[in-house]
């Protein structure tokens, strides 16, 4: 079972770059890159809140659960 992060798709739909998102949510590009590439082991509620506000989306748009 894996949690997938759809940051790539959301950024593309909104025409936003990772750097711009980084500036808006106050999370480093490195950490956003870790999240985008599925290498994060956990995500803080504060980060999730900031991402949802910046991308105008729900947590379910950003994350999905997939069975192996």
């Amino acid at each position, binding site marked *: 079972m894996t949690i997938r992060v759809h940051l790539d798709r959301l950024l593309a739909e909104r025409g936003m770059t990772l750097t711009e998102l980084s500036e808006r949510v106050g999370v480093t590009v490195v*950490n956003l890159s870790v999240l985008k590439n599925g*290498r*994060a*082991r*956990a995500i803080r509620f504060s*980060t999730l809140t900031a991402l949802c506000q910046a991308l105008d989306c729900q947590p379910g748009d950003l994350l999905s659960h997939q069975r192996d």
Partner: protein
Amino acid sequence: MTTKSERDPLQPLFGTLSLLFPLAALVLVAGAALGVFRSLRGSVCFPAPGWTIPSEVEPASPLRQGARVSRLDFGVCLDQPTLWERVLGCLVAAPVLLCTAGALYLLLALLRRAAADGVHTVGTAARVRRFGLYVLVAPPVASLVEAAALRSLPQHAVTRDLGGPDLFAVWDFPWWAPFVGLGMMSLARIMSASAEMREDLEGTV
């Protein structure tokens, strides 16, 4: 203001051991080598704690030919030892010294790797566990080997059975070893758990 050395969890042990290890290792290994060399080249001399062996000049002395009581070595010497007696002589002289040198080397290697890779890593925890296992097993075994050799050698110096102390009376059991060894292994488990927590924390965005 806090300096870096005050914050370093490996200090002052790492610094002290780095400084003292060359000298300590030299003394320990040289001591063992000297004991082995003496046992292999000349007479085999050994202490005989718990034994009452009359001098060879006394009438009805039980000492065999080629054996003598040595005041210089505080024990008994075999002037024409067999190969097995030379081996026993080496086993009286070397194991505990080499075991101690090995423990110091392992500890220094552990600290060096911890300094390079970080203290809170799974690898460091595994190395602490291995060091604990070494401390748990090696000193008791080394001292047992020495005691067995020490118990056996006086019997080679006499012509009749003098009884003598049993093995456990001669065995200087290092009582600290099980406590320190088990303590290190418990510490390794705690370190392993904290290393996993650190990895989780580092992967948190």
